[in-house]
């Protein structure tokens, strides 16, 4: 029988207001999408389990993600800094229909790394379902994400496309990070 080890890690979702951070989490964790936009007050935490094989050590790793949804209002610096503490990974989100949210990805990443040092991140461009209003795509996302040697995904919290992949990829990177720091 294969061993199973359990680890629990905190991740944060960052990005401008109304890019869809809360919707992504809802879709991923509960599989519901709500068209109504409610500002996230402060922070909110949900959890989700992922399982990865660890063939090298002949075991399974069960990773519980504690997903922190942080409000997008940048002015609340202290709340952000406090919420970043202890994070082992992040999903940094922008909105395909608003180009300024793409430009802010770097600022979000910098503010995060100021607190956490380098941790695995995944970039997400959300609202891929709003085809007629999309203002940018793969090549712009590649520019940002390659600067951090990190992957990116185009997602839709409405249809659910690519959301699982984004979280799973982050989980994989975190485990890789963890295993390499163990050795």
């Amino acid at each position, binding site marked *: 029988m294969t061993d199973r080890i359990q680890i629990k890690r905190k991740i944060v979702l960052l990005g401008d207001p109304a890019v869809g951070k809360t919707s992504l989490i809802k879709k991923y964790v509960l599989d519901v999408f709500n068209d109504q936009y409610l*500002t996230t*007050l*402060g*922070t*909110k*935490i949900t959890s989700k389990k992922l399982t990865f094989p660890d063939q090298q050590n002949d075991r399974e790793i069960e990773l519980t993600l504690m997903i922190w949804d942080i*409000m997008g*209002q940048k*002015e*609340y*610096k*202290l*709340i952000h*800094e*406090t*919420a*970043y*503490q*202890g994070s082992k990974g992040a999903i940094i989100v922008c909105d395909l229909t608003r180009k300024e949210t793409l430009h802010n990805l770097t600022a979000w990443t910098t503010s995060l790394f100021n*607190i*956490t040092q380098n941790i695995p991140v995944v970039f997400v461009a959300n609202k891929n379902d709003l085809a007629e209003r999309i203002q940018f795509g793969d090549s712009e996302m590649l520019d940002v994400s390659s600067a951090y040697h990190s992957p990116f995904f185009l997602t839709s919290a409405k249809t659910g496309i690519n959301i699982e992949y984004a979280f799973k990829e982050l989980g994989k990177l975190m485990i890789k990070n963890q295993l390499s720091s163990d050795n």
Partner: protein
Amino acid sequence: MTENIEMRKKICLLGDPAVGKSSLIRKFVYNQFSEVYVSTIGTEVTKKDVMIDFHDSSQEPKKYDITLAIWDIIGQKEYRSLISRFYKNANGALVVCDISRDETFQNIREWISSLFGAIGKVPVIFVGNKFDLIDKNTFNSDDLIDISCRYGAPWITTSAKDGENVEIAFAKLAELMVRDTLHFERMTSLIDVLDAMIVDFCEVNGGLEIGMPLFKEEFTKIPGASLKEPKREIVKQLIQSLIKITRDNKGRMIADFQNSRFNNWLEKVN
């Protein structure tokens, strides 16, 4: 030539009995060390000036002359209400463990939450003392790194015996306190005040995970409350309801400390 900026700061040294709090102070202030252990009864206050050069990106470098009032606090953590009283008006702390005794490290979490739980978030440095007693080749800093990530505070290893890093630990704390003071001096908007209030309220009531839902509940009760454009009247109302929760959770004294912090911040901005 510009004059030095003078500041007075109160700092506390926290940690289990016999981790070396008093020895660190003695080394730092008088450059003395003694192997004889005398447990601190109640509290002792020592003073020492430190000079630091500080600049952040928005300013010219400035020289600060900081008078530290260093409070050496009883290590028996059972004296909770006494200890909370000592924390009052502290501007920062060194949270000390004995790196050769693991249980003193485990208790660091309790010490920091008792500090933040009494006076909100202040600059802190984690100090692993008695570094002279351990084998440096097998020393593993993972746990210290972990706790420093969790609380967003730096860590350092020291030896009060041979003096290693002792000055640096105090100077680094002084620098963090200057940074913190500048941050509060630069509060200009109600958003800045609300931002600081929310973090303070959460830290006092057990961290963001616990505090944020409590805050949210109170905030949404107030008609017209908005995070984007907070109004003065609403912030005032919020202060009252948050203080009431802190009083229920933590008692009158801690609520009073918090109330005066909140009102100080609110007075700063118009």
